């Protein structure tokens, strides 16, 4: 009976998290909306010039005197700094209304994260095992790692501009988990009872979580890049995000964290496969797709340093890689016959 109580508490926690995160999503949207430069300002060419000059001075060839100059190179948009959230030096200060919305969004994100973590811990306590035994649990734990990665990163630099694009996929995942993939807590089948479940699946979920953030960043980069090359543009919240070059670097940064984790996932999976199924590689559909994902992201990393390949095209490859992750999770588990079929779903 205690177990059932824990199960209900876990579910309540996850449901509450979706409500809180929905509010966080709205708050992030409001935050971005309030950052949009006003029409008058956008129409004022002098103001734009000032912005350009200020932005250009950061890496100008003439070195500033040592004492005073180091600041604007080292400070890359610290939290609530003088510049916009994207760390564009010289941009107008953040409107008070935007800052308020951003603060609320951040607080709600933290609360939502705590609730998801609580949901996962309660679920684990209820089933007395590592909570990664079926699709519902992968989805919830994956969402948890996305939120945790975002929160951890956001303590290093101002990432409120990214919040909307992190919370939205998390909400989608949690929504699908609750409605489509929900499975009552239960024990595991024998082949899943292994320490390798903890190692292999946990690292896989962390990796996918970081890839998710990389995916959001990649899309933002492509949009920003399109906007920057447009001849005519209306003011939009994208103006207050980091420039395309920075977004591309952040995309890359997320991927070089996630890719080694995915490599490890595949290796750990192979070790476990040998323990459980007798052979470290069986070309099981899940293995095939894990391999495909690895190769596609490897292609992204190569494309990025290939002369003659545009950064945009490289990022497109990374987006395809994320598409493969989605296929690997949502399609392979459900529709393909293989050994990676889990309890319930």
């Amino acid at each position: 009976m205690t177990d059932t109580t824990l199960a209900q508490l876990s579910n309540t926690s996850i449901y509450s998290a979706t409500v809180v995160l929905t509010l966080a999503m709205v708050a992030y949207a409001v935050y971005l909306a309030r950052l949009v430069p006003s029409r008058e300002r956008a129409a004022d060419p002098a103001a734009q010039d000032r912005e350009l000059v200020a932005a250009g001075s950061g890496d100008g060839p003439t070195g500033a005197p040592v004492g005073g100059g180091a600041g604007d190179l080292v400070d890359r948009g610290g939290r609530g700094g003088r510049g916009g959230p994207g760390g564009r030096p010289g941009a107008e200060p953040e409107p008070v209304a935007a800052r308020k919305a951003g603060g609320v969004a951040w607080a709600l994100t933290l609360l939502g994260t705590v609730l998801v973590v609580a949901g996962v811990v309660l679920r684990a306590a209820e089933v007395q095992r590592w909570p990664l035994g079926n699709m519902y649990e992968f989805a919830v734990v994956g969402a948890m790692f996305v939120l945790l990665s975002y929160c951890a990163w956001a303590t290093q630099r101002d990432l409120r501009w990214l919040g909307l694009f992190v919370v939205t996929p998390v909400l989608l995942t949690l929504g699908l988990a609750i409605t489509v993939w929900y499975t009552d807590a239960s024990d595991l089948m024998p082949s899943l009872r292994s320490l390798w479940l903890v190692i292999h699946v946990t690292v896989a979920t962390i990796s996918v979580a970081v890839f998710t953030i990389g995916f959001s960043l990649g899309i933002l980069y492509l949009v920003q890049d399109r906007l920057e090359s447009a001849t005519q543009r209306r003011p939009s919240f994208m103006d207050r995000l980091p420039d395309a070059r920075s977004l591309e670097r952040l995309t890359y940064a997320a991927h070089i964290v996630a890719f080694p984790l995915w490599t490890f996932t595949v290796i750990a999976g192979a070790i476990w496969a040998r323990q459980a199924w007798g052979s470290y590689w069986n070309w099981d559909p899940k293995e095939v797709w894990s391999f495909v994902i690895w190769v596609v992201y490897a292609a992204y990393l190569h494309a990025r340093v290939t002369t003659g390949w545009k950064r945009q095209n490289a990022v497109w490859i990374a987006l395809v890689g994320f598409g493969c992750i989605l296929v690997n999770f949502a399609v392979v588990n459900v529709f393909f016959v293989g050994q990676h079929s889990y309890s319930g779903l």
Partner: protein
Amino acid sequence: MSTRTDDRPDVAQPRLGGVGWLRWTWRQLTSMRTALFLLLLLAIGAIPGSTFPQRSIDPARTAQWIADHPTAGPLLDRLGFFEVYASPWFAAIYLLLFVSLIGCVLPRTRILWHQLRSSPPRAPRRLDRLAAHRAAEVQGDPEEVREVLRGALRGRRYRVHAHDGETLSAEKGYLRETGNLVFHVALIGVLVGVGWGHLLGWKGDVIVPVGKTFANTLSRYDTFSPGPWVDVTALSPFTLRLDDLDVEFETETTGRGQFGAPRDFEASTTFTDAEGSTEERSIRVNGPLETGAGTVFLLGNGYAPRITVRDAEGTVLYSDATPFLAQDNNYTSVGAVKVPGASPQQLGFAGFFLPTGVIDGERGPHSVFPDALDPQLALTGFEGELFPSGRPQSVYSLDTEAMIAIPGADGADQLRILLRPGESFELPGARGSITFDGVERFAGLSIRTDPGKGLTLVAALLSLAGLVASLVIRRRRVFVRVGPGEQPGRTVVSVGGLAKDDDDGMADEVAALLTGLEGTG
């Protein structure tokens, strides 16, 4: 449209000789663009292996798929879509990729080797041309300032070299390229390990009922697939007796699809090695038995009802624990009993074993729970010739081509036998009797060796280490130029940084070097 080219005066085209063409091909193959193209091709090429059934994994499903698609099936079969990972085109992709990789790694190794043995290059004349650059005038002699910076660079783990009296050249991050090369070379190691395992490894599957002993010889295996270089006569002659098979199923009705799900399997065995020393060992899922001459995995289980067939006089014609193969999660199992010693005609029985049996008109005989709570045997009988053409056939099914169904005593055109443990059935027409003595479990064991797995694992881990090093470490060059300031005792110092890769921390590094100088000066 082609007239324009025709109007052009003759241009002396460089002629590529045979060697030239080879060199050109090699350049193309080892170029980054080709590698990238091959990588994407590899990803695409791997996908059909997950969408089409693969012969090496599930031959029955593959055959069924081809039969269901009379047009596409044979065509795709010829194209290797049912053996994607052994198909020539898939091999072509990855072999070209690896050739391309080798062609990339070799020259890069040579370059890195030279760089490691030589000192960082001379400082450029104009440091302010570098992307990251700072200049300042500080207190101190030029030589003093230079030494402070030399110390600071060394502290930041730079290799520092002074080509002349007023500059410093420093470089660090050689491990980035080293890691990159290790990653790529280790991938070759993975491929070699996989290939080695394929050539020298073998696997065999065998079904062993409780109480029976398995001896590791070729003839005892139900299926055996050796690598091309395996000496199948040299198998280590160990034996393994299956003393007990403990199986647990979920009996709590929690969760979707959870009732009856397997929870634990454990095979208790007595292992006797080639020298004759005996030991009790247990095999579990996730806990294989390492014998030193192959690893024994517990991959399957099921029921082997003990069945006895007697003739009309009561002489035992057949008595054995007969494995039936489970068809669903509740272990509705199919199997066959073949009695070649029966006369005047050979007898055969085929049908179902049901651990918890229910027989209804809609679904026919089926089991509703995987544990043996109400075991039943539902068989039909045949007589005639069991092995008409001498073809090999499955022991789990009856080839009824040369047999006819035994009619029921009640006039039905087919005899239906339903037995519970301990029950016997008298076959009509003085054909004898069949008895269901009891139920044993069987273990599906798979015995495998893979001599390449150690190499594969080590290479994979090395490649991971190399990958991390190549992604995390940054290759940076820093140049310093010092000169006397306008007043005596002052020095103009200029620091330039050059990052080999996209490196947004380079400016910070240069700035920090000068800030540190301010602090000490």
